[in-house]
């Protein structure tokens, strides 16, 4: 459902309120009578629009039932790990494991001997191999290309295979806290359930759309593109679908209905690809409160992205494209 007018009111009030306050300041400075008559009246209107649209957004965000997040600090084990190397530095790795039966979090600590090249994922694999084989987690390539090992390390969403354990331990006074991504539903221990994440990605139709029936499923020849055309979408094609951006996004964490920065960055990626012929329909498909306008531009997604996809910038540019594309005679393809 198109939400442009509502979102225009919201963003218009976000610009109008400070602008009117600034004008009142100037009018008072210049001793203009408008400071006490017209401008306060306009300010009330702008504040009302801001409060209504903002409260509605917050109310919508709080409408999701959610569940309590309880952490049980009851079980702590300090196992003497089998040292991989006598030259290793001792590090305490505290893993916040989700217990699927009790639906609570257990914080379990493990002693680990790390070298300067040990990654968080390497340590977790060793812990699973030598200390506690009940530990569940997702991992695959171990080289930062598959996006499977996404988790939160000392409060920051990262790829475990690309995170140096000693660096994190030094920053955390010798303790490394590993927890699952709470921005996704949880399966067990530190393994998230990515079903909804993949569904959101699929919902934006992340494939090239060609109008000719013969080209819909198989293109017979390469479609030439200039370097400039490729540069418009290239960095956004680096997405691994690791899910770190959704975990970092405060809007997704408070309103799971928001489609999320990953899907929106892919909308921009295909919108800017000259080979795609879907046109403005891609923009209209995300022109909703749960689509592009749900983003509050905190920028956390871009800070968490390990590949420099910059979903925050992509979403702002999507908003710009939408505002430019709104005309009275727009026809949906």
């Amino acid at each position: 459902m198109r939400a442009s007018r509502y979102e225009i009111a919201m963003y218009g009030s976000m610009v109008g309120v400070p602008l009117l306050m600034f004008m009142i300041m100037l009018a008072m400075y210049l001793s203009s009578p408008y400071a006490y008559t017209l401008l306060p009246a306009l300010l009330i209107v702008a504040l009302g629009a801001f409060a209504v649209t903002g409260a509605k957004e917050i109310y919508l965000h709080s409408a999701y039932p959610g569940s309590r997040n309880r952490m049980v600090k009851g079980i702590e084990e300090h196992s003497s790990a089998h040292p991989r190397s006598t030259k290793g530095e001792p590090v305490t790795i505290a893993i916040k494991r989700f217990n699927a039966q009790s639906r609570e979090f257990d914080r379990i600590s493990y002693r680990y001997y790390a070298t300067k090249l040990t990654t968080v994922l390497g340590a977790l694999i060793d812990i699973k191999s030598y200390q506690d084989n009940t530990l569940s987690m997702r991992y695959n390539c171990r080289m930062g290309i598959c996006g499977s090992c996404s988790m939160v390390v000392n409060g920051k969403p990262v790829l475990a295979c690309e995170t140096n354990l000693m660096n994190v331990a030094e920053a955390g006074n010798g303790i490394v806290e590993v927890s699952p991504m709470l921005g996704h539903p949880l399966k067990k221990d530190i393994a998230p359930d990515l079903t909804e994440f993949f569904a959101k990605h699929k919902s934006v139709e992340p494939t090239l759309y060609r109008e000719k029936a013969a080209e819909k499923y198989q293109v017979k020849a390469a479609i030439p593109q200039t370097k400039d055309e490729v540069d418009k979408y290239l960095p956004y094609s680096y997405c691994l679908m690791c899910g770190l951006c959704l975990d970092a996004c405060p809007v997704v964490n408070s309103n799971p209905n928001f489609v999320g920065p990953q899907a929106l960055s892919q909308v921009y990626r295909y919108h800017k690809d000259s080979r795609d012929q879907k046109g403005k329909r891609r923009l209209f498909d995300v022109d909703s409160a749960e689509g592009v306008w749900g983003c509050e531009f905190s920028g956390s997604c871009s800070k968490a992205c390990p590949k420099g996809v910059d979903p925050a910038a992509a979403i702002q540019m999507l908003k710009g494209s939408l505002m430019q594309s709104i005309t009275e005679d727009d026809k949906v393809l």
Partner: protein
Amino acid sequence: MAESYDVRGRQSSILRLYGFDKEGLLHMVFYRAAIFVAVLLIASIALGVAYAHTPFTIYTEILMLVMWVLFTPQLFETFKASSIIASGGVVFGRLNASFMRFGVRRKPWFVIYSAVPYVAMAVWACGFVILAYLWLA
């Protein structure tokens, strides 16, 4: 397949940003606070007009100064977003470092886009000082 457990859905979840993005946390918290202050400000202006025959009572002045501060991150992010849109994600962007080095040509006028949010903040801060002086001094 085992059921999954969802802990999302609460506004307190935005506090997770404290661990790695304090700027984002400030932006989110100030926005939510501004919504409540906006309601108080409307009431204050309306009551001021009704009972004191002026829209600017001492309560309105204080609330407006508070609102001025709460709007600071919103204004900065708005101008930052405008710079991002105008520069195609180069200015204030966090694009892949390799792509930025080899695939992007920084135009000379991007310097202006970089400066716009900070100039806006400077003007905004001056306005706050002037207004505070006019009302509270």
